[in-house]
């Protein structure tokens, strides 16, 4: 029994409730309902039996009981010449082989042709997240990593589509994928992306995700160069529900190749769960079936790693590791991998950063199978893991880890030129083909716009009419190339023709093909040859220079130029008059303020932006207000705050001194204390106010008078001060230390305040 009221909740939970993370929902492991990432009691034991060179059972199912997926895998994926040998290797050993850098990728790829879905899943499940990432770096097919962008907008505005496509090209995306809000707008979107992607350089592949038959028609007209929406599923019923079969999809794969169009399939954990036909199997096992199916179909690659199912997969324990594991199976099966990192699986930026890192450092054929190069609300696929908002975060991650994520920073001036060029080129095409006459105001709004909310351009309905005309009049890429050339967009005409010409040779139909510097690069002529440090993909010096060139970087010259802007103003407010060498004082009523070497000579503001004259004046006034005098001394032997303070204290008749650096760090010291055992310290100069400095000086006076004042505390709200200020602070401090002379004596200095300090009337 007690009168003390017991709180009903620790308030920290309320803080946690308010974090973006708590918008995410987490599911309990529940294999019976499909919520199991790696293993389920229903997953079959790996196995394969052959009779007379034919598969008679696979993963515990006899051939006569094969469902449509088993049947396809047994017939087209499993190689009877390899299956007995590969299946006989214990899973533990295969797992170790995957992370053995001395064992070439090609050996493992050969064995994969004889491994069943259950075996593949069983092996990769034995690797932890780090091992999966490492194995992925070794096993992915093409050596040079790449990336893919989504280019869409909420209005299906073709002008914005073209401008954003041109930006995606400049950023270095190897592929751009568009889709539409209104399905009738496909043709317009595809044409606009094709024109935008031809601005700047040639070689970015483009596609328009739409209904299968329509997509193939658009490809035939030359407005797309690849396809990736050919979905496959891991259970028979989800396949049927997706309105396809392995045979229909394999037929479609051949149809795309027959038209010279690059194609990959799509699959990923969680799709069967979302469709309700998971057969109580684990996500990884079902995805292993999808991937064996894809290799059997003879597609060059896959888009996997959850994809639309990534968000639900991320709700289960180990979900993110599972997404990595299924990508690993894809590359082990020698498929090009557009490795997900697509649908945003979380509201937590920490989970976003953690999700991308393994892919960034291990590399991938296409790290994101849809990086939102546009703003999140403009993404017609739904927001991506990374969106236009966070694009610079990705660029900085590349720089942090010196890892090639396929992107290159672009300059501000360059972006406006590209956007204007793309918008003008598309407008010219529209006019030449009598599809529309966008006004100058429409064009200008798009060039400047960050997203469709800023534009005054086409509406979805107006686009539908344009799209209809393109389709009905049978306009092809040839017409667009002619229009570009006629209207003076010769480079764009050339670039567009080059991309369409790729389909004649079919070189880019090979595994993991992209176009770099005007040449086809694929697993054939750029095979991943990772075998430990110094092998595999390494950023060249030239590529590294591109990656590190993010905008707004600092160096000492920038700091000094910035400071020089304030030199004149300070000269009008304060006069520093050096006197003789400073001698120890005897007056008990003085406080000595020790200034840093560059104070008022090369540096003129604190990091909070206060004029040094104002700081010195407020401190002088505060000490005078207590009836004490101030003596200023410039230190030459040190720039360190503690020693500035201690040296000042030792010169001070009262034994109390203040150390003050130009950047605003200040300390009160006492002559009888150890160097770093000061009385009071302001270490957060960027948020220290003039009142704080006045308070600190008043306290110094109080100590000199023998009082014990309440220390002045500069309160913070937890800002990442170090992140904001460490680079400039270190550069500023280097300016101070450059002036330090060993053993140089402190110099007494008179400060004359010439004007009322800014913002203060006297």
């Amino acid at each position, binding site marked *: 029994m007690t009168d003390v009221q017991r709180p009903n909740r620790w308030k920290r939970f309320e803080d946690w409730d308010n974090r973006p993370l708590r918008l995410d929902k987490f599911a309990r492991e529940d294999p019976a309902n499909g919520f199991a990432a790696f293993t389920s009691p229903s997953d079959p034991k790996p196995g394969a039996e052959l009779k007379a060179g034919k598969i008679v059972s696979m993963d515990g199912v006899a051939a006569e009981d094969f469902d449509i997926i088993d049947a396809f895998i047994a017939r087209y994926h499993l190689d009877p010449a390899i299956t007995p040998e590969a299946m006989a290797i214990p899973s533990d050993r295969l797992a170790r082989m995957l992370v053995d850098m001395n064992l070439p990728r090609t050996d493992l790829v050969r064995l994969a042709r004889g491994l069943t879905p259950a075996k593949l899943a069983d092996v990769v499940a034995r690797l932890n997240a780090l091992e999966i990432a490492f194995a992925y770096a070794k096993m992915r097919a093409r050596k040079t990593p790449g990336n893919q962008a989504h280019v869409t907008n909420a209005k299906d505005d073709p002008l914005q589509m073209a401008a954003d496509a041109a930006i995606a090209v400049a950023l270095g995306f190897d592929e751009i994928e568009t889709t539409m809000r209104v399905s009738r707008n496909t043709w317009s979107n595809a044409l606009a992306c094709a024109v935008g992607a031809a601005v700047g350089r040639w070689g970015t592949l483009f596609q328009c995700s739409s209904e299968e038959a329509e997509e193939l028609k658009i490809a035939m007209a030359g407005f797309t160069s690849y396809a990736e929406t050919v979905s496959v599923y891991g259970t028979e019923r989800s396949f049927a529900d997706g309105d396809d079969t392995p*045979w229909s999809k394999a037929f479609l794969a*051949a149809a795309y190749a027959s038209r010279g169009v690059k194609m990959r399939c799509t699959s990923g954990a969680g799709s069967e769960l979302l469709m309700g036909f998971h057969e109580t199997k684990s996500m990884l096992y079902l995805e292993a079936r999808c991937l064996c199916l894809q290799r059997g179909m003879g597609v060059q690659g896959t888009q996997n790693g959850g994809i639309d199912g990534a968000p639900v997969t991320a709700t289960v324990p180990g979900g993110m590791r599972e997404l990595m594991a299924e990508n690993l199976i894809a590359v082990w099966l020698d498929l090009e991998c557009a490795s997900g990192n697509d649908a945003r699986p979380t509201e937590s930026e920490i989970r976003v950063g953690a999700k991308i890192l393994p892919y960034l450092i291990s590399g991938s054929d296409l790290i994101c199978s849809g990086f939102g190069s546009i703003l999140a609300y403009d993404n017609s696929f739904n927001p991506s893991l990374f969106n236009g908002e966070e694009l610079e975060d990705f660029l900085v991650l590349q720089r942090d880890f010196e890892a090639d994520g396929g992107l290159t920073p672009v300059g501000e001036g360059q972006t406006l030129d590209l956007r204007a060029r793309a918008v003008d080129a598309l407008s010219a095409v529209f006019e030449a083909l009598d599809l529309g006459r966008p006004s100058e105001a429409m064009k200008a709004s798009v060039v400047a716009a960050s997203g469709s909310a800023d534009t005054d351009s086409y509406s979805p309905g107006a686009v539908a009419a344009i799209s209809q005309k393109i389709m009905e009049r049978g306009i092809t890429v*040839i017409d667009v190339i002619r229009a570009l050339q006629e209207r003076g967009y010769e480079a764009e005409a050339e670039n567009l023709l080059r991309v369409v010409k790729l389909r*004649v040779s079919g070189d880019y139909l090979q*595994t993991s093909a992209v176009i770099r510097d005007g040449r086809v690069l*694929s697993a054939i002529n750029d095979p991943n040859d990772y075998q430990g440090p110094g092998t595999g993909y390494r950023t060249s010096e030239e590529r590294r220079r591109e990656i590190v060139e993010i905008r707004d970087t600092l160096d000492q010259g920038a700091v000094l130029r910035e400071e020089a802007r304030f030199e004149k103003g300070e000269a009008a407010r304060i006069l520093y008059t050096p006197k003789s060498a400073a001698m120890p004082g005897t007056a008990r009523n003085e406080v000595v303020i020790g200034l840093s070497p560059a104070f008022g000579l090369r540096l003129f503001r604190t990091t909070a932006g206060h004029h040094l004259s104002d700081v010195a004046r407020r401190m002088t006034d505060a000490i005078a207000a207590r009836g004490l005098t101030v003596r200023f001394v410039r230190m030459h032997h040190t720039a360190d705050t503690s020693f500035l303070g201690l040296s000042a204290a030792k010169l001070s008749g009262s034994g109390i001194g203040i150390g003050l650096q130009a950047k605003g760090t200040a300390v009160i010291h006492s002559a009888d204390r150890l160097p770093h055992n000061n009385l009071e310290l302001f270490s957060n100069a960027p948020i220290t106010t003039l009142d704080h400095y006045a308070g600190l000086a008043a306290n110094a006076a109080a100590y000199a008078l023998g009082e014990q004042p309440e220390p002045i505390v500069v309160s913070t709200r937890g800002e990442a001060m170090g992140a904001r200020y460490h680079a400039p602070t270190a550069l500023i401090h280097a300016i101070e230390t450059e002036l330090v002379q060993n053993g140089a004596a402190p110099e007494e200095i008179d400060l004359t305040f010439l004007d009322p300090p800014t913002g203060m009337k006297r």
Partner: protein
Amino acid sequence: MTPELTLADYPLAETRPETVRGARGIPIDRITVKAVMAGDIGMEDLRITPAALLAQAGIARAAGRQTLARNFERAAELVDVPQDIIMDTYEMLRPGRVNDPADLIARADMLAHDYNATAIADFLREAAEIYARRGFFAGRSEGAT
């Protein structure tokens, strides 16, 4: 095109451009913007040929990608099959579109006979057999269940 292509011949458009031709025989180095403006180039000239697909199949096989090679070989058979027949055949292969296996077999025979698409025809016949066993000929879109 010689069948014995090696990995060193890849990319064909870069190493042997003279052998790469569009569907009407125009070599790729003559497919230029100038030719487009002169009206000499149509979509037909930007189409891949069976020969190019078979060459890519050879390269894929040399790289150890047997299944990819087979897909290119099936694709080579489809090059001359008109778009509407391709889309119609795809539609027939979707679940429940065809209720009688004989229809699919008839389509296989037609593709083999009219377009010499024998691998595709075998592929369709095989689908007919599996579909029958797994009930994929049952009407689905009618909503009977």
